[in-house]
């Protein structure tokens, strides 16, 4: 058995009396594409923050290729090859699209190579038209793309995408789904999303979080048919 790319064991974080992420054991293999769903407040974004070091776990561990990264700082985890698109886009607003990507590419590469890589990603993501626009002036959907581009420019081996399709038009959602499958040819991804149409487009295995804990983890078709999943999404299971 190979060492998994990402493994969490008993991962827990409490804020006062609230347990936002509760004993989560999560395993992601190399080059896997996993979707993470769950109702609002299920702990999906908090889980991502634990993986990227934005929050420190109260208990439990995160292992990246067998190396313990729990409690490490965000920049240290990023250097280990984890890239994230956050739920609320974290971009450099007063900078151009091009500069946003360049800063990301520059971390691993020389300035000249970073410029080439930036141009390549701008072309791949069809952002060349707006390359010289300030990111702060773009529409939400475009900002999402810029942030995805920024993540790609950092060349991570594991990519976490928190609601990548939010605020996008139908056509943009389809392009995002294509892009995710394209990225997945070479890299592993975990995608958090609410849009079930989108999930159906990309998902193989789906993990459902509910009240901070893993409710079910299975093939996408079975998960979407599961009565408990429907209950938590429709609110019936709240008392459970």
């Amino acid at each position: 058995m190979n060492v998994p790319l990402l493994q969490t064991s008993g991962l827990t974080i409490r804020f006062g009396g609230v347990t936002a992420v509760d004993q989560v054991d999560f395993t992601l293999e190399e080059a896997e594409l996993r979707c993470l769903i769950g109702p609002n407040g299920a702990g999906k974004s908090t889980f991502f923050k634990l993986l990227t070091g934005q929050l420190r776990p109260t208990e439990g561990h995160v292992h990246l290729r067998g190396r313990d990264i729990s409690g490490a700082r965000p920049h240290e985890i990023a250097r280990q090859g984890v890239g994230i698109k956050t739920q609320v886009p974290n971009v450099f607003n007063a900078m151009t699209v091009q500069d946003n990507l360049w800063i990301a590419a520059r971390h691993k590469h020389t300035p000249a190579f970073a410029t080439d890589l930036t141009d390549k990603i701008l072309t791949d993501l069809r952002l060349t038209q707006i390359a010289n626009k300030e990111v702060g002036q773009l529409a939400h959907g475009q900002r999402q793309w810029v942030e995805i581009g920024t993540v790609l420019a950092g060349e991570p081996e594991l990519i976490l995408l928190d609601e990548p399709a939010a605020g996008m038009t139908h056509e943009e959602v389809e392009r995002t789904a294509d892009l995710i499958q394209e990225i997945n040819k070479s890299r592993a991804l975990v995608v958090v999303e609410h849009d079930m149409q989108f999930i159906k487009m990309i998902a193989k295995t789906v993990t459902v979080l509910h009240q901070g804990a893993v409710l079910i983890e299975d093939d996408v078709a079975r998960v979407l048919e599961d009565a408990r999943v429907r209950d938590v999404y429709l609110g019936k299971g709240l008392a459970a």
Partner: protein
Amino acid sequence: MHQLNGMTGALIGSAIVAIAILTAPLYVDLFQIMQLTVFAAMAVLALSLGFIWGYGGILCFGQTSFFGLGAYAYAVAAINFGDSTPAIALAILIPVIFAALLGYFMIYGGISDVYLGVITLTVSLILFNLVNSTAGDFYKIGDARLGGFNGIPGVPTFNLPGNSGYILSPEQAWMVTGIALILVYLGLRVLIASSFGRIIIAIRENETRAALLGYDPRIYKLITFMIGGAIAGFAGALYVNWGAFVSPTIFALGLSAQIIIWVIIGGRGTLIGPVIGCLLLQWLVTEIGAQQALDANFILGAILIVFVLLVPKGIAPTLRDLVMARLARDKPMTADTTTVKVKT
């Protein structure tokens, strides 16, 4: 491309100003030369805050700490060595070490921006009180008596490097100060256009994103803070060279506030802005000081309020936007490509 064009512009502008500085003694009288010298020294100080606040996003309310430390370091060293060259080096080195220590505890301690402002202001007041209470023979470093609130008079001014017998004339001191201002400005321009500069701007824009890309924001902020300390300390040496005198008022609240006003009025996020703001306001304060009807602080306060309300970006960015809007209107077809990379 655009950055290169911007740099060419800065070089041409700097060359013109340099010629004006070098030829000024031919058509400006000595009194005005002396005035301009202190203005230029203060403009270097303004640049130090303009850099760390405008580009590093660090609002340091106590930039005078480094300015004053540089001034005192220069004065003490110049008196002891009898040579200005090592004294200038110390006037940069000591504030840098102090900035490294202070910055380390604040930045690595995770102090938020507001508290950073409060702490740096407090530190400058502590230094003020500390130096103020060093009157008497007991407080001396080598041959230099610190002199408490009386300060240190008769500080040796700049001499030719390697020839401590050749003291610069006021005209030569003006040229050195003016050229130093240009060199600091150009040096910062180069720094900002470098990878380091672009990264610190990115951290200013979004520290979380920078960290998630693998940059440690703390080390970049600390280095930025130290560069600011170095420049402020150097400005301190230029200031003492102007007056041959330093007193604790150099650490006082009034100057700390003025530097911030220079940057706000000139324009944060530019380098030329703080220089313009500094020169303009110092000239204004001097003019007001020549008459009795109006109080200088009253006018400064009024100007600050007017700017914050009506010209919040400051002089330089507002002028730049006007020029850009004009260019965009004249050439509507290329509007998108001409409005990029306008940050200086």
